[in-house]
């Protein structure tokens, strides 16, 4: 597809697999969470606000949820277990707004008193921001938030003062990385008020994952910030798609070579490291998006879902229910020999074996032969 004719949302979804939007609010006349305030006050206020949210908004207290303690940071960017302040509370609200299901998180007593957040893998950033604003405004009917006529909402971090908004998107930019144009893309981000940096999850030299976040939160309203942010990412997505097309059409032999290595890894390798597996998967996703590979049918190998579990030591999160409940019968037969030691590389290799059979598209093979 011609990138210029591509719909913004489609382009956005091709590169962006997760977006975290958070809105910070603080209560007036009560110190922010800082060492100078007695911690007993923090506990008391957290309890009071937690009850308020549960009573009026049907938030559910999930602070003690074991799975969220360990997985909350990875999947929803919630404060990790080790970094939770003593009076920390985590609440969840499952609601339906504008005929859509939403899961809103509210963290109490992090740096800010209230942090309303949502993690999505859809392009509805503006809509989700409005939902967060709506919830925050509803809470404001019961709690007086710190607000200044000049500075807007007052937050503990000067970088969030104003709208209190923080937005971060995780993106996959293999085309631009291979074309060596990422420095220019990051410079463009700087100009547009977006902060981009390489994801250092594995500190791998070939990493093509970047995250982008808003640099300013006072100059515009939350909706305007999000709209500009998304417009930049859509533009970036179109450039990325253009770079992928160049790779697939102008240099098909290079792409074929890279994909063959990835296929070999999925077919033969028994102890792949997380970074090389992720790189191979990343090549597969890119190839699928430009029609070099037939689309992957199995939903568990899809772009949006793979990244999260790859961040783990193995495919544990996909097989988490079976592993947690010690339900060996629920595991595929091929896993059983390795189950006892839970060898993560081996489990991952076995789980990804079906990808080794993913076929090249005939058009792509023709193009290589023609070249």
């Amino acid at each position, binding site marked *: 597809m011609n990138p210029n004719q591509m719909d913004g949302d489609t382009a956005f979804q091709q590169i962006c697999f997760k977006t975290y939007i958070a809105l910070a609010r*603080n209560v*007036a*006349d*009560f*110190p*922010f969470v*800082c060492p*100078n*305030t007695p911690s007993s006050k923090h506990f008391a206020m957290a309890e009071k606000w937690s009850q308020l949210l549960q009573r*009026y*908004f*049907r938030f559910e207290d999930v602070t003690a949820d074991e799975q969220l303690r360990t997985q909350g940071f990875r999947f929803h960017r919630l404060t990790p277990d080790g970094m939770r302040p003593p009076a920390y509370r985590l609440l969840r*609200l499952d*609601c339906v*707004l504008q005929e859509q299901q939403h899961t809103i998180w509210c963290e109490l007593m992090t*740096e800010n008193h209230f942090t309303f957040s949502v993690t999505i893998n859809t392009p509805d950033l503006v809509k989700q921001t409005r*939902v967060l604003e*709506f*919830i925050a*405004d*509803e809470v*404001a*009917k*019961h709690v*007086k938030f*710190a*607000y*200044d*006529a*000049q*500075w*807007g*909402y*007052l*937050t*503990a*971090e*000067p*970088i969030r*003062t*104003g*709208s209190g908004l923080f937005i971060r998107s995780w993106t996959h930019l293999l085309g631009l990385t291979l074309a060596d144009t990422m420095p220019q893309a990051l410079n463009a981000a*700087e100009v547009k008020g977006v*902060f981009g940096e390489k994801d250092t999850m594995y500190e791998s030299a070939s990493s093509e994952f970047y995250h982008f976040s808003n*640099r*300013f*939160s*006072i*100059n*515009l*309203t939350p909706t305007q910030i999000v709209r500009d942010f998304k417009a930049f990412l859509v533009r970036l997505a179109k450039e990325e798609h253009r770079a992928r097309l160049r790779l697939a059409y102008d240099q098909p032999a290079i792409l074929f070579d890279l994909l063959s290595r990835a296929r070999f890894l999925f077919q033969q390798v028994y102890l792949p490291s997380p970074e090389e597996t992720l790189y191979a998967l990343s090549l597969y996703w890119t190839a699928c998006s430009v029609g070099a590979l037939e689309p992957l049918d199995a939903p568990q190998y899809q772009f949006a879902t793979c990244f999260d579990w790859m961040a783990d030591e193995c495919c544990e999160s996909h097989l988490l229910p079976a592993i947690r409940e010690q339900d060996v019968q629920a595991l595929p037969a091929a896993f059983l020999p390795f189950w006892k030691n839970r060898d993560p590389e081996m489990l991952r290799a076995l789980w990804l074996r079906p990808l080794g059979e993913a076929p090249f598209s005939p058009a792509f093979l023709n193009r290589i032969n023609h070249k």
Partner: protein
Amino acid sequence: MKCEICNQQKAETVFFRVAEDGSEEELYVCHACAARERAFEQAHGIQVAAMDAPQMPNLSDLPTPPDAPPGDFEGFPPPMGMEMGEPPLEILNQLKRALGKEIESLDLPFPPETDTPKCPTCGTAFHTIQDGGNIGCANCYTFFRKELTELLQDIQDCTHYPAPPPAWMKDELLLQQLQVQYRDALMREDFDAAEALSKQIETVKQRLKTPPTEEEGRNEP
């Protein structure tokens, strides 16, 4: 100038590091980035050539005037960083905070910490906020208004939130406005206007005191 690594904080120091091709590059960075880079390079066994202050020239490297006796530097400009007689109190205080207990035993003429203005509500000093810490409370924004305006200008390039105030805040802002007008009226001894404003202030205060109705309270999303 902003830090060349994080592009967020103000550049406070110079950091020299050896690039991959062996050339030495000079970066203007904030203290936090300088410390992080230094720790990273030391952990990887890389020779670090970092410094937190402009490098002092070695005295023995300075050219000696032909007629002057050895060791006499009269007539030459003092080396960089040595031209001022007494270091400013702010620098002394920063040094004291950085070195902590190690220099407490030394009898140096540091002014007491109490000289640093602190927010009366939460006790946060501005240098704590400036050093990458968080703001202590909403009152800090009023107490350090001037300093925070400069800080926000540096960080966010803007100090005004353009959105209209939220509905629940309108009365609060009206109250603030009326109180300023009331003070002005008293100052110019216009007591009639002051009385009218006083009544308006009372009305707004009453409105603010009224708790949300049960209907509003049950307004669930």
